[in-house]
Every structure is written in structure tokens, then in C-alpha cells.
């Protein structure tokens, strides 16, 4: 049976494809590879922190691995992550289009990501980089190692994100199926659309900041270097103007996936469709006004702290609305606990803890105590690993039948989830207490009182990596030996379930007509 996978074969057909579905799989392959490399770095870090004093490596090696873990996970895994893999694959399918608006631009975005990643990885052999993924000046100007490679790498990867965002905005505006108004679009498309708006508006400022940092390192232009009159806090303003909206680039598409999973596995129309749609856009817009909460103790004025703290509290409200609506979707539903749904429930539990600790960090007096401690590390892993990776893995299992035409094994899927969920909480929950006790982050070594908490956390990191390994095994197992998947295994209501799995190159035999809401039964 002809479909987009067996239509053309050979490496060149993949490397020069213009089909949004194949580009989605190219991203899936590269993002998962970067994820596992980043994960190994995380394991090394946790291993080093197992005991006081030197365990397996020296301070320079630890700082470089800490930076690489940060750079790879942020710029190569979670920012491209859900928008590039599932946005590329399922945005056209869910709005009934044949392809994204600019297919060539789409392929260019993938090559930009890979070039940027390659350039960033070259830094390992040219002296390594140990500035942390935030590149704060003047330290990032002072060290004479490979930092410039990572900065240029991130600069290139930024354009991959801009072009993907641009592509998706035009696709949503111009290529929707006839009859699909804005309020008949699935919530995943709303999530991808509001993420694209952030990608387009925030990433250029990162581009100029990293360009200035490169010029700073090459010619010492002194815009961010205090020795020449520059202001390092201004670098932080520019950096966080991008990096806070960037965390919403990471979470909004994942929230879109959770809306899909909730609706499909509760066999229920989503509760409060408009509320969820408007909160996605609301979060996207308010996220541009809150970056200062990363700089409460960085020498920012108290008046600016007042302003940023109050606006950050506003961002919490739409997030809370979404969680309440998801839980209400389960009310009077008919719930079946396949693996994707477990990831959605796991997301809600973990994101609740992440969200509430976020409120703690937005409160001025509390942030002074826990800023740059392990409380923050635990917080952002709860909202990034829990908030983005759980739905990403959930989406891999949810859309696996549609993408590859094969079913995964439910047993492997569920055990992998249990391992990941347990391992995640055992790894990161103790770190909240290390943080409130005052253990600073990015520390190669710590004083005795923090030892037991770190040991529990390291044991947890072995559990969670076993879980993610099991996910990989589940994927490979079902790619090879999976049973033939029906076109609509979960009785989903959105358009992608109405075409064959895996879909043909043109996605739909005939252009679908949209007459009802995305999740109406």
C-alpha cells in the first residue's frame, strides 16, 4: 500500500525531501539523538555529585559537561523538539493541508539546526566551553576556550527556529481546509501557532545578542564588557528577553499535545475549548513582559523587580486555567489508560509541582533565598522534563500508529512510563530541599550536609535513564515487530485520524471538508 514512507527510498530521498512528514521524522531522529547524548551528560553530572569531593572527574571537566548538557538540551532538544517533530508532521494533517506553506524553507530549517549543532559540538575539541548555557558576560568574554563555537552554533540554530515559526504562521493562516475557522482548529494547532508567534518575535533578539557576544570575544567591542564601559546586566536583559519566551516555546506545544491526549483518551469533547485556546495565546503575549524575574538579585533596581514580579504572577493565571480545564475534560469521560494517557496524567501531576514552585520563584522575598540554588534546578526540570518531555514521549506513542503504521507494545510503554515517572520524582524532588537548604547550582562539589539528598537524586537519575532507554527499546521493537495499526486506533476525532496510516504523500485522497468542532463526538 503506497504511503509517504515507501513512496521513494534511498538516503538522498530523505536528505532532499520536501514532504513535511519526512522532515518531521528527520527532526525526530536528530532530536532523539541529541536527547540521549544530553542525557548521558546528565548521568555523568549526577554521578560526579554522588559523593563529596572528586568522584569521577575534575572541576574543569564537570563545568564543561554541565554547559554542554544545558546547551544541548535547550537549543537542540526542547526548543526544536515538539514544534519541529510533531508540528511539522501533524500541523498540515490536522488542518487538512497538503504540506506546510514553504517546503524548501522547512528543509533549510532542518539543515540549519544540524549545522548549528555541528558547530556547537566542535567547541568540545577547541578548548571546550564552561560558561553555562546562559553565557553571562564578563566571564564568557574572559575565558579563552571554545565558547565562540557554541555561541555561533546557537546563533545558527536560532534561525532554524525563526524559519520554522514563520512557516507555521503562514501555514495556519493560508492553508486551512475549507470550513475550518480559527475556532474549529485542534488545540494542538493553537499551541503550535502561539509558539510560532513567540519563535518569530523573540529569537531575533537572541540572534543580535549572540552576534554582539561573538564580536565582543573577537574584537573586544566592549558593549557588554564592564572594563570598557559596557553593562553586563544589559546583556542579561537582552538574553532573558529571548530566553523566557523560549521556555514558553518549550511548554506551549507540549500543552497542545496534552489537550489532544486528554480529549482522545477521555473519549470526551475538550472542556472549555475557547478558554484553553485563548490561554495559549495569552501566555504567548504576556511571556514577553516577564523576563526580569531571572534577574531579581542581579543588580536590577527594586522598582524593576516590583514590575517584573507582578507581571510574572499574571502569567500563572492562564496556566492554571489550562490545568483545571484538562482535569474537567476527564469528568464524565470514558477513560482508557493506554501509554500516551499515562504521560498526560504524569504531565499534570509533575507540571502542578513545577507551576507552584514557579509562583514561589516569582515572589520577590522568596526568590532572594532560592535564586541560583538547586530549588531553581528542580523547578525548571519539573517544568521542562515533566512539562515538555513527558508530552513529547506521550506524543511519540500517541501518533506512532499514524507515523509508522505499526502499534507499539502496551506492556513496554507502561513499564517505561512507570520507571520514568518514579525515577523523575526521585531525582528532582530531593533537590527542592537541597535548594532551600542553600546549595547553590552549578557546583562541582558541595559541603557535607547536602550529601544524602544528592545521593538519593543520583539513584533517581539511574531510574529515569533506565526508563528512557526502555522507551527507545519500545520504539525500535515496534518499528521492527509491531502489528499493523488501524487508521484510527484511539477513535481520535481530529483530521489526521481520518486518513490512512501511514498517510500518503498528499495526506488526503480528497480535500477534507470541516463541518464540526475538532473534538465533537
Amino acid at each position, binding site marked *: 500500500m503506497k504511503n509517504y514512507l515507501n513512496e521513494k527510498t534511498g538516503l538522498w530521498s530523505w536528505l532532499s525531501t520536501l514532504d513535511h512528514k519526512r522532515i518531521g521524522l528527520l527532526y525526530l531522529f536528530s532530536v532523539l539523538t541529541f536527547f540521549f547524548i544530553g542525557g548521558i551528560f546528565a548521568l555523568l553530572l549526577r554521578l560526579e555529585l554522588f559523593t563529596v569531593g572528586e568522584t569521577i572527574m575534575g572541576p574543569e571537566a564537570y563545568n564543561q559537561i554541565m554547559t554542554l548538557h544545558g546547551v544541548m538540551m535547550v537549543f537542540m532538544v526542547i526548543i526544536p523538539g515538539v514544534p519541529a517533530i510533531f508540528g511539522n508532521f501533524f500541523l498540515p494533517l490536522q488542518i487538512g493541508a497538503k504540506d506546510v506553506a514553504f517546503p524548501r524553507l522547512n528543509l533549510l530549517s532542518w539543515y540549519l539546526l544540524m549545522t548549528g549543532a555541528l558547530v556547537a559540538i566542535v567547541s568540545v575539541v577547541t578548548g571546550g566551553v564552561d560558561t553555562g548555557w546562559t553565557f553571562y558576560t564578563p566571564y564568557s568574554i574572559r575565558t579563552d576556550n571554545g565558547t565562540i563555537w557554541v555561541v555561533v552554533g546557537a546563533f545558527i540554530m536560532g534561525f532554524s527556529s525563526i524559519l520554522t515559526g514563520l512557516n507555521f504562521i503562514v501555514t495556519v493562516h493560508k492553508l486551512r481546509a475549507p470550513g475550518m475557522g480559527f475556532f474549529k482548529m485542534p488545540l494542538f494547532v493553537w499551541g503550535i501557532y502561539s509558539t510560532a508567534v513567540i519563535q518569530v518575535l523573540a529569537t531575533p533578539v537572541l540572534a543580535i545578542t549572540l552576534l554582539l557576544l561573538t564580536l565582543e570575544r573577537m574584537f573586544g567591542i566592549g558593549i557588554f564588557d564592564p572594563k570598557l564601559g559596557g553593562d553586563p546586566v544589559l546583556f542579561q536583559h537582552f538574553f532573558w528577553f529571548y530566553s523566557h519566551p523560549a521556555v514558553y516555546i518549550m511548554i506551549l506545544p507540549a500543552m497542545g499535545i496534552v489537550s489532544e491526549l486528554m480529549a482522545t483518551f477521555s473519549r470526551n469533547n475538550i472542556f472549555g475549548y475557547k478558554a484553553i485556546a485563548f490561554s495559549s495565546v495569552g501566555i504567548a503575549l504576556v511571556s514577553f513582559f516577564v523576563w526580569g524575574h531571572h534577574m531579581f538579585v542581579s543588580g536590577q533596581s527594586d522598582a524593576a523587580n516590583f514590575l517584573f514580579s507582578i507581571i510574572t504572577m499574571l502569567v500563572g493565571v492562564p496556566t492554571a486555567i489550562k490545568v483545571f*480545564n484538562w482535569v474537567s475534560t476527564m469528568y464524565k469521560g470514558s477513560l482508557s489508560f493506554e501509554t500516551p494517557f*499515562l504521560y498526560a496524567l504524569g504531565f499534570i501531576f509533575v507540571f502542578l509541582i513545577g507551576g507552584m514552585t514557579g509562583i514561589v520563584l516569582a515572589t520577590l522575598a522568596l526568590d532572594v533565598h532560592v535564586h541560583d540554588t538547586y530549588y531553581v534546578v528542580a523547578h525548571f526540570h519539573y517544568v521542562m522534563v515533566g512539562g515538555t518531555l513527558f508530552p513529547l514521549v506521550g506524543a511519540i506513542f500517541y501518533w506512532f500508529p499514524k507515523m509508522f503504521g505499526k502499534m507499539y507494545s502496551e506492556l513496554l510503554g507502561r513499564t517505561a512510563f512507570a520507571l520514568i515517572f518514579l525515577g523523575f520524582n526521585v531525582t528532582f524532588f530531593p533537590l527542592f530541599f537541597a535548594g532551600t537548604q542553600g546549595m547553590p547550582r552549578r557546583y562541582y562539589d558541595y559541603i557535607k550536609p547536602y550529601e544524602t539528598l544528592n545521593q538519593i537524586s543520583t539513584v533517581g537519575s539511574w531510574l529515569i535513564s533506565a526508563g528512557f532507554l526502555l522507551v527507545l527499546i519500545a520504539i525500535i521493537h515496534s518499528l521492527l515487530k509491531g502489528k499493523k495499526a488501524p487508521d484510527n486506533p484511539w477513535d481520535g476525532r481530529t483530521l489526521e485520524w481520518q486518513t490512512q496510516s501511514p498517510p500518503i504523500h498528499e495526506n488526503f485522497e480528497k480535500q477534507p471538508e470541516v463541518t464540526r468542532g475538532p473534538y465533537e463526538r
Partner: protein
Amino acid sequence: MFAHSCMGANKKTGTAMIYIFIFLLLLPLSAFSSAFPSPATPISTEVDQMYYFIHVLSLGCGLLIVGAFILFAVLYRRKNNSQATATVHHNAWLEWTWSIIPFFIFMFMFAWGWLVYDKMRTPYKNALEIHVYGQMWNWDYVYKNGRKTAEALYVPVNTPVKLIMTSRDVIHSFYVPAFRIKQDVLPNRYTALWFKATRKGLFNIFCTEYCGTGHYSMLSKVHVMSLEDWEKWISTDPYEGLSMVEIGQKVFRGRCTACHQTTTQKMIGPGLAGIFGSVRHFEEQDSLTADENYIRESILNPSVRIVKDFPDQMTPFAGLLQEEEMTGLVEYIKSLKPEK
């Protein structure tokens, strides 16, 4: 139909999931009490009260929401394939309530946070002003009467203190967990911190802004003592009646332990035992035996000669050490012998 065949597995996994969630809910309760270093300033107790409030409130709301979805998970398990599902999918009243309530909770938290923060940031009148200098990987302190110290920040109890801080190279951050205060220390600029210690004792100082290889070892202590002891300490010459080697040891313990050990074991910098008289090999220059001038020069201006396979990371101490301290250090390093 595929969905039907996995019906059996549904019940077992549904209940298994519930046990996992409940276990994880008990996790926070168990380790709640030992959450904070015991408070040592009036502000700390206020900050702790706020912590307990927000964490208990979050736990309450968390239990409500997680409880709700566990309840739904149990009640609305899929029993058969044609189960009727909800007809109501929108309730404006409900949407408003769960927008307004979080809004007010968050605004309340913001207001409370701002009030305590404002109290934290308003300067005490006639506070004892002390200068704090951060440099790559140690802190040192200068008092108004010119008294310099590096091994600890000596502070009288129950007296307001104002720290005026600046950095000699990159951004550091002065953090005393017991006082719940933190402030970045920026080059070319002064930032300030205020506290009034109400308990005597030694409290850790950490650097919390990443500043390079020795970021983790940039530790120091706040030594809170009674007013009389402090007055006696501030007026006495720190090195009175000490031999040259003892002076050197005092200076070493204040400034050099971040990177150097007194054994032969390498840390960030080389171990200093048995250095004096040994032959040192350098990246560029030809090697020489370590004598007093070499030790003096590599303390005052280390980047002149870099020992093979060591990074050029040591910050110069030129202008920071008095003559007495300098000679003391040299004597102390000469006295370090490798353990047999």
C-alpha cells in the same frame, strides 16, 4: 477491535497508577520539617513563614487537583465501548471562578513578597559599613578603619550591618543561606546588602553566580560574635605575637584554600607541599628551581610563568597583600614539606 482487547489491562494499570500517585503525594510531607537552615536574622523568620504558607497552600491545592483527577480516573474508567460521555463542555461561571481565585492568590503572594523584600532592602540607619571584594575564587573584607581580613567576615551580634560589595573580575554573588540574603557582586559597580544577625556563630557564605572553575570552592564564613569580642578583634593587630610562618598560615587559610592544598595533591592549582627548592617546568620559559623570588613573583603576578599543563587562571594578588603578609606567606610555603 484493538481498543477492546486491552480492556482487561485497563483495570490493573488504573489502580497501579493510583498507588504511585498517592505514594508520591506523601513524599513532600515526610521531608518538610528540615527544609531550611535555622534562621539567624529577623528577616529569615518572616521569609520562612512565607515559605510555609505558600508550600502548605500549594500542597492543599495540589491534593485537591490530583485528588480530582484520581477520582475521575477511578469513576470514569472505560467499562464498555459505547459509554455515554459528558454533554456539557463549557461553563463560563466555572471558568471565571478558577481564573479569579488563582489571580487573587497570586496577587496576595506578590504583595506579601514585596513587603518583606522592601523590608529586606531598606537600609538600616547608621549601619556598620564593611566593604566586600569578590575575586576569582575568594572573598576578602575591608573595614572602615582599614582593617583587612580574608578568612571570615567578623560581625558583631544584634548590630545592623551594611555590606558594600564589588568584584575585581567577573560577576559573583554573595549568598548567606542562614540570613536568606543574596546579591550579585558586579565589576565596576557597588551593590549593597543589609542584615542584622541575632545569633552568634559561624554561617556559610557561598558564591551563587557561576564564575569559573573554582566557583564551587569560593566559600567563606560570617563569624558573628558579641560586641566586646568584636571590638577587641577589630582593634588588635591580627598578626601580633605570631611568628612569620603562623602569619603566612593565617593568610593562606583566608585566601588560597580555594585552589591550593597544603599536600602534594593537585586541586585547581598545584599542591604546595615540597614546592620550595623543587625544579619547576613552565609552558614557555625554561625551568628553574623554586626560590623565594619565584614564589613571591608567582603570587603577585602569576601569569608571567605558567607551570606546564596548568591553566593561566590565578588572579594576581599584587596590591592586596601587605609586606608582612607577603613574607609570611613565603615562609609558610617554604615550611610545607610533603608528607612522608
